[in-house]
């Protein structure tokens, strides 16, 4: 079943075509990586999928709803309800503890529930660090808190932007293991990266070049 469908979308800034007639189909439960050099249109695509930008042309169907013509207020609601975001820079609220950072996401979504937030931290192995401030956590720990935050509201889609870009190998593996577990539980994952190793962990890799899909690689070794 299709969760996300991009139909012939273009994003044009004056002369520059950041995205040029791109179409993409992602099924429910699929794990897709998007790769490409800088300037290839990765970020623009990510913004559009993440409901933070709208295409100049084309349609974006998320869970059957066309989000390409929605108001920014409606986009905020959709993003909150359906998408969990993970960023390269982690982005934690630096004056809130780990568990509070998770609860912020609950707060905007529905009701903060500390017990549930602690369980989410447990899943990423940080139950013990729940009361620490971001400055007291390592980069890997911060990113794991962000994973917990992204999945706390049970989103349809987890969108990760260079999730391991600032991590060492050990932490990279921890995060990828977490993704694998989420995938097994049926969560749809779209991971933007330029790290081939991260891309290889996904079922399918889309390679963007000059705003177009250059090629699509199916990972034969997935799950092995």
């Amino acid at each position, binding site marked *: 079943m299709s969760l996300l469908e991009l139909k012939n979308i273009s994003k044009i800034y004056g002369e520059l075509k950041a995205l040029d007639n791109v179409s993409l189909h992602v099924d429910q439960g699929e794990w897709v990586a998007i790769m490409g050099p800088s300037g290839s249109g990765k*970020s623009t695509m*990510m*913004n559009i999928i*993440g409901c*933070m*930008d709208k295409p100049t042309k084309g349609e974006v169907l998320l869970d059957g709803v066309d989000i390409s013509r929605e108001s920014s*207020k409606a986009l*905020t*609601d959709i*993003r*909150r*309800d359906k998408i969990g*975001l993970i*960023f*390269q*820079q982690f*982005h934690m*609220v*630096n*004056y*809130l503890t780990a568990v*509070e950072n998770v*609860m*912020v*996401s*609950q*707060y*905007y*979504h529905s009701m*903060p529930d500390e017990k549930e937030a602690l369980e989410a931290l447990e899943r990423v192995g940080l139950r013990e660090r729940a009361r620490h*401030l971001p400055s007291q956590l390592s980069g890997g720990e911060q990113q794991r808190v962000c994973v917990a*935050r992204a999945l706390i509201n049970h989103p349809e889609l987890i969108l990760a*932007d260079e999730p391991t870009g600032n991590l060492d190998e050990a932490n990279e593996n921890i995060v990828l293991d977490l993704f694998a577990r989420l995938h097994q539980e049926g969560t749809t994952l779209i991971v933007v990266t330029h790290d081939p190793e991260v891309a290889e962990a996904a079922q399918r890799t889309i390679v963007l070049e000059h705003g177009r899909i250059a090629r699509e690689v199916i990972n034969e070794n997935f799950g092995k």
Partner: protein
Amino acid sequence: MFLRMITASLLRRRSRMLIALLSIGIGATILAGLVTIYVDVPRQMGAQFRSYGANMLVLPAEGTVMERDGLADALEKIPPDEVIGATPYRYVRLDMTSRQQSFTAAGTDFSQVPKTSPYFSIEGNYPEHTREVLAGKKIAETIGLKTGSTMELTYQPAARTEAVSPEDSRVPGAELAGNAEGFGGGIVYVSVKLDDHGAVAALEIDAGTQTPEYGGRTAEDEGFLGQFIGKTLPLTLGEDVDALSGATVTSEAVVQAVNSARKAEKAAKPQTLSFTVTGILTTGGEEEEYLFISLEDMKTLTGSEQLDVAELSVSAPAEQLEAYAEAISQENGAVRARLVKRVTRSEASVLEKLTALVFLVTLVVLLLTMICVSTTMMAVVSERRREIGLRKALGASDGSIRAEFLGEGLFLGLLGGLMGGILGFVFAQAVSVNVFGASITFQPLLLPAAILVSMVIAALSCLLPIKRAVAVDPAIVLKGE
């Protein structure tokens, strides 16, 4: 969670918030202080103005003499606790024979002077005993007086011009005294004793002011004096009495003095007392040309307890003062009271100007506080752009971003207002004690009012920063720095 986020934001990001809190707190402090002083100021100003001198004068009514009893009666018309001071004055000219100069001397009650004339600045001390004098600065400079100097002062009764006629005094056995202007303006004094039939039995002449070898001889010349004995007053020069040769003018004065003589008063003759200077008075006004002595000495010198004026300092609003003045003037014919209009009127006009000033300062402080808080919040917003973007990316609506920043602002306003309300009172108290020399009462409404105003200011200051915060694009969180 909302409160948890706001308090965490304020508590764990202290330095920034401390600046905003401080500006609100200081603003609120000054405002609360000003308002407190302002509320208290009419009372303070009243006291302050009375310190610039008396605001009511009690004077003898036309053609009457006021003594201390009359003043006491007048004071009964005013509640005792409203009378700050009542200072009687009696002004006469006293001669300083050693320098052949005369000065205005004021007899007064030194215990009252500081109350009605607090601006008197004295080098030395107020006189505490009789025979002590407080000298005005100008007099002191003119004749070189210093604290501890002594001076002799003489009271010269003026030439008789009063209404009581000499005829009424010429009863048998009476002792009469008179004077008249003699040669060169000097006064000639006489004492006359009448016998049982009303004729002159004895005559004494004081011609000390006349030329000794001419007019001065009238006092000793048996032949001249003898002419008066046994005669009935009035006398005529050239008929009853012949002039002493070479002293016609003085002889004429003696006859005039005898004719004008009436029942002797104690002070019909000059009285001289010696005084010690206890202090030099500086006022910047005409008081510097006066000598101040006690009423007791004034009585010894002049033989009368007459008062020329009493200065009153009364603690009451202008209308009430007028009512008191009217009551005093109507009660008995002996005294009348009038207000010192200059002081009471300027009190009102200064209060008006002060109101305008307080209003202006309040406005400026409010504005400055708003600018300061607004600038700080603006800095906070740009500092937290990333966080705001993150919150929006996580699904925060514009409304919740607004609510969070407004919440922080209001919380700051609450704390700042609380701080300002308390510190403001302390500030007002300090100002009041230092400037007005009086403490003020705490206004219970001040605290909630200060908090409310601070919160409103904080909220208003946050409007622009909030607009900025809402405009942050959530997409900024996606890419790098």
